[in-house]
């Protein structure tokens, strides 16, 4: 993509292509995903091609306007010479359906870091950008974000094989029923509980503790970064736009000058160009912000996995604790000593010993319970270990992806800055030429 010549100290580093557009940089990430080549992507091309406004009645029978997105899928096959590619299959989905899909995935694969959706409402906006959901720029950026989401799922080794995901891409009408039929909604409540619950785990897995902390830190720093970036954009906008006033005053001034007039007038036009250039610059930067936002939302997914692990660990500890208590009880019952206070024990002490028969039946019941308990602990332990294994594998995959994507994002941001500087130099050089002719 580019070569930085760091060897020579005399020449400036040579960069192959510093004028990479945001679309190109977006495509670079998509191409990386596609390159990872899951079975699904090997046979299918996925696009979110368009967005359209619709009006209809909602669940409370009120008119509403909403946007639908066109999902195109096309089989991957070699196109014969001179031939046209096959027409894509198409269906329309609205944002709420994407949300439903994601909730299904969250619940069904709690050990996977599920890719996030683009934001529901525009946040971290600087003043010129509209925060309106129906604003065409916002819709366009959301379209890109939704396509990104689908590609991320499609390039995931496990998620790409999910049947419901496949139906989402191919079955417009029947999909909703299919997803409800999976009964995933039952698990939604328990997931919410695990997310919000406050329980103390006695032996937390250090790796997950560290991961959760990192994720929280990342969330905090990206939030701040996005917030400040919006303010920086706002201020920069102001600086550029005020220069536009020079355009007008130079023009007015040129009217009373003789030799100086032409130079002033032309310089004024360049000032207008300078002021206008900020709009495109900041629009491009929004793509960078979107890339950061994706990872901001990713931290929620990571946190979710950590929380799920915590819950499993906690449940394991609970059943283990329960088992230990029962074993204790058995011991006491067998030896006749009371180490642990129990109501039954006290009542028998107060109201007379129980019969041998009673004791034996209690012991038998306890034995049964212990056996069941041991089974439960074994199962729970296996569940926990399996979770840790699969989750950690996905987390490693995620970390690598994050490092690569953010690196690309930072590079493209740096290139944007170079481009902005070049434009600035160009305009001011033009203006200087005009001033020289005054």
């Amino acid at each position, binding site marked *: 993509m*580019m070569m*930085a010549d*760091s060897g020579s100290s005399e020449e*400036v*580093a040579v*960069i192959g292509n*510093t004028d990479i557009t945001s679309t190109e940089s977006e495509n670079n990430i998509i191409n990386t995903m596609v390159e990872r080549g899951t079975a699904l992507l090997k046979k299918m091309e996925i696009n979110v091609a368009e967005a359209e406004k619709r009006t209809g009645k909602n669940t409370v029978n009120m008119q509403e306007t909403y946007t639908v997105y066109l999902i195109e899928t096309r089989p991957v096959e070699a196109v014969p010479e001179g031939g046209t590619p096959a027409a894509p299959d198409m269906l329309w989905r609205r944002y709420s359906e994407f949300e439903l899909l994601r909730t299904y995935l969250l619940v069904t694969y709690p050990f996977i870091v599920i890719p996030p959706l683009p934001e529901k409402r525009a946040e971290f906006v600087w003043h010129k950008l509209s925060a309106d959901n129906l604003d065409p720029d916002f819709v366009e950026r959301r379209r890109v974000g939704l396509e990104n989401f689908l590609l991320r799922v499609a390039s995931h080794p496990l998620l790409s094989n999910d049947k419901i995901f496949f139906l989402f891409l191919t079955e417009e009408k029947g999909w909703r029923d299919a997803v409800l039929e999976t009964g995933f909604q039952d698990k939604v409540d328990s997931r919410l509980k695990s997310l919000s619950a406050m329980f103390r785990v006695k032996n937390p897995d250090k790796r997950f503790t560290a991961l959760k902390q*990192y994720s929280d*830190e*990342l969330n905090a*720093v*990206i939030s*701040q*970064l996005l917030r*400040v*970036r919006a*303010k*920086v954009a*706002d*201020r*920069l906008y*102001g*600086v550029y736009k*005020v*220069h536009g*006033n*020079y355009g007008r*005053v130079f023009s*007015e*001034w040129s009217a*009373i000058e003789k*030799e*100086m007039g032409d130079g002033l007038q032309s*310089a004024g036009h360049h000032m207008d160009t300078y002021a206008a250039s900020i709009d495109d610059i900041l629009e491009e930067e929004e793509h960078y912000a979107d890339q950061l936002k994706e990872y901001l939302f990713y931290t929620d997914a990571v946190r979710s996995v950590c929380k799920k692990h915590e819950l499993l660990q906690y449940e394991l500890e609970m059943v283990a604790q329960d088992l230990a208590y029962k074993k204790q009880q058995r011991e006491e019952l067998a030896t006749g000593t009371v180490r642990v206070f129990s109501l039954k024990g006290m009542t028998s002490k107060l109201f007379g010993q129980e019969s041998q028969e009673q004791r034996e039946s209690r012991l038998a019941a306890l034995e049964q319970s212990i056996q069941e308990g041991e089974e439960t602990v074994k199962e729970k332990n296996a569940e926990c270990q399996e979770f840790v294994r699969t989750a950690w594998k996905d987390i490693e995959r995620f970390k690598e992806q994050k*490092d690569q994507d*953010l*690196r690309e994002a*930072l*590079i493209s*941001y*740096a290139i944007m*800055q*170079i481009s902005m*500087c*070049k434009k*600035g*130099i160009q305009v*001011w*050089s033009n*203006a*200087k030429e005009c*001033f*020289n002719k*005054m």
Partner: protein
Amino acid sequence: STQEAGLTNGTPVETSSPASVSSLFNRLQLDDDLDADSRDPYGCTETRDLFVTVDDPKKHVSTMETYITYRVSTKTTRIEFDLPEYCVRRRYQDFDWLRIKLEDSQPTHLIPPLPEKFVMKGVVDRFSEEFVETRMKALDKFLKRVADHPVLSFNPHLNAFLSAKDLNKRQGLALLTKVGESVKHVAGGYKMRARPPEFCAMGEYLDTFSQKLGTIDRIAQRILKEQSEYLTELREYGTLYSSWAGSEEELRRPLEGVAGCVTTCCTGLEDLSENMSQDFLPVLREYILYIESMKNVLRKRDLSQAEYEGRLEAAVLRKQEDRTPIPMEVEKCQDKVECFNADLKADWERWQSNKRQDFKQLLTGMADKNINYYEKVMQPVINDTLTRFK
């Protein structure tokens, strides 16, 4: 040093100047850039023989007051001066005295302006480095303009200013101010018929020009304000990248790279803003004062024309009544007006030509500073950040 103990004692200080006057000539003749448009209507300026500089500000503290003096250095081959070199110390008051003397003794000429005399105590620090630096540059410009003027530079008051040990002006100052005022009112009783069109055009030009400069001043101030706010946000932005870098491994270097670039941006902006307020705005404001001086000269010209017309009218009436011939004073008045007009026109041409050069320099300077800023910001991004990424 003990030399400075004497206040406005203009003792010529032994200057160990590396360049002799003649080598200065040579250097300047090579540098002199004359093109057809800026030819001096008074004659050839290739052999300039009077060079002045204002520099080396020093603070003086006495029981009565604290003030700044500046070193005024002169090099000349003119016979009107006794010595080829002078070095004196002068304070603002002295410059003000010179200006008033020039205005009074050469009423038909445009006298360059001085920087603002009064500054609000508590708002502006009169002894801050920036204020003194800015003021000194303006005083230097003032003196250079006077020294370059073919008529004003021969004024005996300038000679005294540049060479005298002690200006001895304190007694005269208050009186002279009053005299100056009265000169303005002498022709007060006369009303001018009509300002000739060429002077009307000048007046209109000055009004519009002054207005436009005022607008540019406001725009520049607004830009400064916006840049300052941008800078504040940018600083916080940079620190966030640094702190993020701390919690990353693979991403640390690229993030630190971005943080570094933001820092470069910040220093670049500081320089840009400083230049705007130290160099750009003062020159702009000084021109606004220059315009006011020019308008004043126009007014004086109007007054002298009014005086002439008044006297002429009265003389013509008397001639009609009792055949008294037109007195000599009236002809002298006419001469005065014609001289004034000629001087003013010549000065106007000069002023226009200087104005063109000054603004060309000012605006190309502004463009240069902006170009430098972007180049400075871009360099580390290309050299440093992208190599870090690899």
